[in-house]
């Protein structure tokens, strides 16, 4: 609780983040927030941008091998109620997507970064297919695009000292997987949904 408060406050101060909801509203229904990924602070930023009652039901997805190493990381992951996924031990009937859906149950929402890793340059990379399989297995989930602006300047990849510029988190209208929509098409559309938030002034 204390760690959560301290980290959220710190992240907000450092990033001066403002939050915009564009044609969408915060809601406690089950959602997958998918965002562009440029910095370590992204998770905390998106998470703290949500209202408290929504935040309680929302879990960031993170890599188990990274976040279970050492006491501090474990503690942080725990205070954020992170959903840790093992990237190393992917088995046939224990794919990350299944594990995520299992952990989500009928209550929780998740925050994912479908680009896979953090981007070092400007722009948004191609999306990995996890988002598609999540949508296919649970078509009832709302897929909410999130665009995080300026974080690549605040804490770029490979830097550990942040520069306190002003950033902005934009939430867009939910998208759904259309029936018979191909994987590539869907991922393209999802990526375009994030990019379109960048262009709205």
């Amino acid at each position, binding site marked *: 609780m204390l760690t959560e408060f301290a980290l959220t406050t710190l992240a907000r101060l450092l990033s*001066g983040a*403002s*939050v*915009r909801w564009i044609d969408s509203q915060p809601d406690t229904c089950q959602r997958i927030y998918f965002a562009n990924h440029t910095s370590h602070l992204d998770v905390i930023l998106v998470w703290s941008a949500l209202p408290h009652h929504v935040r309680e039901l929302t879990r960031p997805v993170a890599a188990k091998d990274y976040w279970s190493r050492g006491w501090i990381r474990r503690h942080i992951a725990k205070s954020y109620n992170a959903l840790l996924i093992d990237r190393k031990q992917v088995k046939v009937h224990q794919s990350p997507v299944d594990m995520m859906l299992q952990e989500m149950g009928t209550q929780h929402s998740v925050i994912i970064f479908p680009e896979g890793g953090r981007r*070092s340059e400007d722009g948004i990379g191609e999306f990995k297919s996890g988002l598609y399989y999540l949508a296919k297995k649970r078509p009832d989930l709302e897929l909410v695009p999130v665009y995080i602006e*300026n974080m690549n*300047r605040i804490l*770029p990849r490979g*830097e550990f*000292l*942040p*520069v*306190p*510029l*002003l*950033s*902005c988190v934009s939430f867009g209208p939910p998208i759904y997987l259309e029936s018979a929509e191909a994987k590539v098409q869907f991922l393209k559309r999802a990526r375009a949904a994030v990019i379109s938030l960048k262009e709205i002034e």
Partner: protein
Amino acid sequence: MAQNWALAGMVAALLLVATTVGQIIKSQPQLGLNPAAVAAFNGRVRSWWIICCMLSVAFLPITPAVTVALFGCLSFWALREFITLTPTRLGDHRALFWVFFLFTPLQYVLVAMDLYRLYSILIPVYAFLFIPARVAIAGDPKRFLERVAKIQSGLLVCVYCLSFAPALLYLKNIQPAERSRLLFFFVTMALLSEALQYIWSRTYGQHVIAPAINATRTWEGLLGGTASTALVAWALSLFTPFTHWQAALMGMIIAVMGFAGAMTMSAIKRDRGVRDYGTLVEGHGGVLDRIDAICFAAPVFYHVTRQILA
């Protein structure tokens, strides 16, 4: 002491008048005023209240370092807006880190320690030399001079120039209460001259100075605003260590420098294609929009005052 209360009462009365006018024109759409201009006016009045309440700290019988710290926070936020608006590259990251977390706080610490000989050269000399060297070491030559100049100007305008406003609280040869009033006089005149230039421009404005930079700044606004600011300063000289004529001259200096600051910031904003620093990130009032006049006027006001008091 009585002078302090008289000054506070007058400023509060002026602000109340401005607030009332703002509310009246807001509730009277039949006047045919541009709603955006009315909203901008009300936003300005709100920020005047905040600035004046903040400044009242300078009158409390506590160390002036608290006021210095308040201005430090203001500088930090303004610099944030300035650099956010300026495109920087990855290679500038480390230099920016030192700008934000070393030079900005250090400047204000030196002001609070009254080390004039250090804080008057820290940024124009040492930061000026440090920034290009650090950016060069980062190894990205693309648009090198342009990027360095942007960081240097941001630091100079938002931090160095603004720090001369709280430095007024450390002037020699006057009483501490007089110093607080001097700071208050300076900020009030700077805000008032902005308002007066706006009113003159609206009423009599014919000749726009530079339409591509700022379409609302006219020669009539500049001249009328400067003259009327000088008049008000002349009347308020009672609260300052100046004679009537010196106060009027100070009013003119503040008005002209405030105008210069607003024009410069407008030019930067036009170049970046934004209207206000505030609209850049929604939900944040643009601090830089409000203090651009103060930033430019502060060092000149400080040095002229220092000369007069010497």
